[in-house]
C-alpha cells in the first residue's frame, strides 16, 4: 500500500533544506510504514539507501540537492528512525527486511532501476538487493562499507560483550546495551566523535547526534542484535551474484570501519 503525502513536513527542529522533495509518501510493508522522498526527474535514478538506524535519510542532505540537479534522487528513512516506523522486535531489523523495504520503495515510486548508494551499514542490504534483484540495480556505490572483511574493528571486543553489564564504560566500552539504555545521548556523542575524526566537525557531529535522538536506545539495541553477515564467506557469496559496476569510497582515517576492509570489498568486487 502506498500513500503520497504533501512534501515531508518539517520536524520542529529541522533546519531549512536547500531543496524539498518533489514527491514524498509512505509505503507499508509487513505492517511497517516507510517514508520515502523523490527529488528531481530523469531516466536515471540514484537511490540513497538507509544506513544504521542511528541516523535517518537527512544524512544525505549534502548529496540530494546536487545530485537532484542532474538526475532523479530517491531516498527513504530506514525502519527504526526518521518518519518510518520503529518496530520493537529485533527480527524486524534483519538485513533482509531492509533489502525488502528498499524493493518496496522502488516499486512504490515506480523506479525500475537505480544506482544504489549506501553508507556504512547500508552495504549489506544493498548487496542483498543487488544479488536478489540484479535487474533493479544498475551500479553500486559503497561509502565506508560495514561488511565483515578484515581487519577487525576497534570495538571488536566490546561488541562481543555487548550484553554484559560493566562497572564502568569508557571509550569503546560504551558500545554496550546497558550504557545505551542509560546514557543514550552520551553514547551518541561518543560514537559520532569517532565517526568524525576530522578537526572542526562540530556541526556534523551535532546534526548526527540530533538525528540519533529521534530514535531510542531500545530501537538501536534491536538493530544491533539482529543477525547480520558474520564473515568474508558471506560477503563473497553475495558478491558472486552481483555483476554491476561497483565504486567503493573509504576514508583512510575511518575509526569505525578500517579503510583496508573497504579496499578488500573493492578487490572482491573485481576492482
Amino acid at each position, binding site marked *: 500500500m502506498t500513500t503520497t503525502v504533501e512534501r515531508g513536513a518539517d520536524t520542529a527542529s529541522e*533546519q531549512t*533544506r536547500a531543496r524539498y522533495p518533489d514527491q514524498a509518501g509512505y509505503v507499508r510493508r509487513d505492517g511497517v510504514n516507510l517514508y520515502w522522498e523523490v527529488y528531481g526527474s530523469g531516466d536515471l535514478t540514484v537511490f540513497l539507501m538507509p544506513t544504521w538506524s542511528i541516523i535517518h535519510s537527512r*544524512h544525505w542532505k*549534502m*548529496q540530494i540537492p546536487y*545530485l537532484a540537479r542532474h538526475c532523479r534522487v530517491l531516498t527513504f528513512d530506514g525502519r527504526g528512525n526518521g518518519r518510518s516506523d520503529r518496530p520493537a522486535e529485533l527480527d524486524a531489523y534483519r538485513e533482509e527486511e531492509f533489502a525488502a523495504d528498499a524493493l518496496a520503495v522502488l516499486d512504490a515510486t515506480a523506479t525500475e532501476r537505480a*544506482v544504489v548508494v549506501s553508507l556504512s551499514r547500508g552495504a549489506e542490504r544493498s548487496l542483498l538487493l543487488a544479488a536478489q534483484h540484479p535487474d533493479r540495480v544498475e551500479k553500486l556505490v559503497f561509502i*565506508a562499507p560495514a561488511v565483515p572483511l578484515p581487519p577487525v574493528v576497534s570495538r571488536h571486543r566490546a561488541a562481543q560483550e555487548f550484553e554484559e553489564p560493566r562497572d564502568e564504560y569508557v571509550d569503546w566500552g560504551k558500545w554496550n546495551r546497558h550504557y545505551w539504555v542509560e546514557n543514550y545521548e552520551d553514547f551518541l556523542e561518543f560514537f559520532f566523535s569517532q565517526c568524525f575524526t576530522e578537526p572542526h566537525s562540530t556541526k556534523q557531529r551535532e546534526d548526527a547526534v540530533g538525528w540519533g535522538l529521534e530514535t531510542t536506545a531500545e530501537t538501536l539495541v534491536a538493530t544491533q542484535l539482529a543477525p547480520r553477515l558474520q564473515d568474508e564467506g558471506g560477503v563473497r557469496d553475495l558478491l558472486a551474484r552481483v555483476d554491476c559496476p561497483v565504486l567503493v569510497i573509504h576514508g583512510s582515517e575511518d575509526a569505525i570501519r578500517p579503510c583496508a576492509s573497504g579496499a578488500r570489498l573493492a578487490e572482491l568486487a573485481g576492482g
Partner: protein
Amino acid sequence: MLEGSGHLPHARDPVKVNLLLRDFVSPPPRPSRWVRGKSRRKRALYVSSPIGLGHAQRDAAIADELRRLHPELEIDWLAQHPVTAVLEKRGERIHPASHFLANESAHIESESAEHDLHCFQAIRRMDEILLSNFMVFHDVVRDDQYDLWIGDEAWELDYYLHENPEQKRAAYAWLTDFVGWLPMGDGGEHEAYLTADYNAEMIEHIARFPRVRDRAIFVGNPDDVVSDSFGPDLPLIRDWTEEHFAFAGYVTGFDPRELGDRERLRAELGYREGEQVCIVTVGGSGVGGDLLRRVIASFPEAKELVPALRMVVVAGPRIDPASLPTHDGLEVRTYVHELYRHLAACDLAVVQGGLTTSMELTANRRPFLYFPLRHHFEQNFHVRHRLERYGSGRCMDFATASPSVIANAIAEEIGREVDYQPVETDGAARAAALIAELL
C-alpha cells in the same frame, strides 16, 4: 581512498564525494568547445551575499569602478533575491544558473524570532544551503571560463575553496566587512568554544593555502576591526586582519555629494518646510516587523513631544503593511524608491543595527536610533564598534525600549546637529583598484 577522511566523508568532505558520485553515476558531458587563451574575453564572476541588501549596492559600485579600469571586462553575477532585484534594475547580467541557488534570505528569516536572530547559529544551520550553492558555482566555473571570481561574503565559496583547493581555477578576490565569529554572552562556554573553533579553522585555511585568496579586502579601515581575540590561544582579530587584508575604506555605494543640496532634495521628495521627518526602516528582510510595531506604538507620544513630526514607516518587500497597526498622521509604505535619498533628507532615522543603512546615515550625517537584533553578533559587536568609532547613531536596546522610551529618544535626537567622523567616498574605487590588479 580519501586520505585523512573519517567514517562519514559524504558529510565532512561533501564536494569531493559529490563529484565522485556524479562521475560514477552520470559523468557530465564533455564540452564540445574550447576557446584559445588568446581568444578569450576578459570575464569576471561576481558572487554577492544575499543576506541583507547592503552587499548588492556596494558590489554594484565596485563593479562600475572595475569596468572603468577594464572597459572590456564582462561581469556575470551569480546571485539570488533580493540581490537580483538591485542588479536587474541596473541591467547587470545575471548568470542563468543563479536560478539553481537555494535561498539564503528565507532561511535567515526562518531562524529569527521577535527582534532576535542568532546570526552565528543561523549561518551554521545553513550548511546544506551553502554546500548546494557551492556546487552550483562549481558547475558554472567548470563549464565557463572566468579570469576572476569575486566573492563578497560568499561564505560557501571561500570555505569550500579552502577545503578543496584544487577547485581554484581563476584569480579570486574575497571581500568582507567583518572578521571573526564572536560569541554572545548568554551562549556560555559552548558558544565561545564553537566560535573559536570556526575562527581557528579559518585561520588554518588561510595559513595552509595562502594562494586561494589572491586578494582579501576589508571593507573599512583598520580601526573598524574589533579589538577582541579570535578565541583562546588564537591571535587578536585586529592584528591578524591587518596582516592578511588590504583595506579599501568604507564602500557606500553612492556619493553623498551627488545627492546635492539637502533642502532641494527634501522639496523634491515631497517633504514640506518645517516638517520633522522621521524614517523608520528595517531593510529588505522580514526580520524587522517587531521593531516596526514598537516604533509605530511610540508615534502618538512622539507626535506630542514633536508636533512637527512626520513619521514614514517603510515595511519593505517582505513585510505586509496591512499587518502593521496605523495611527492618524502616520504613513506606512511598502516600498520607497531610492530609499537612500530619503535617508539623506530625513531629520531622524530609526533602523536595525545592520551595517549598510547605519553607515549610509553616517555618511549623510543624519541622526539615527539603531536597534541591534538580539543575538546577532555582527550587529552587536562589529557594527556597533564601527559606529562608535564614527561617533554616529544612538544604540537602543529592544528589550528595554518601551514606546515611551523610543518617543523620548526621537524627541531628543530629531534634527540634531551631528559631529560624526567623515566617511570616505572612494571606497569602491579603492576596492576595484585592488581587484583590478588581478586581471
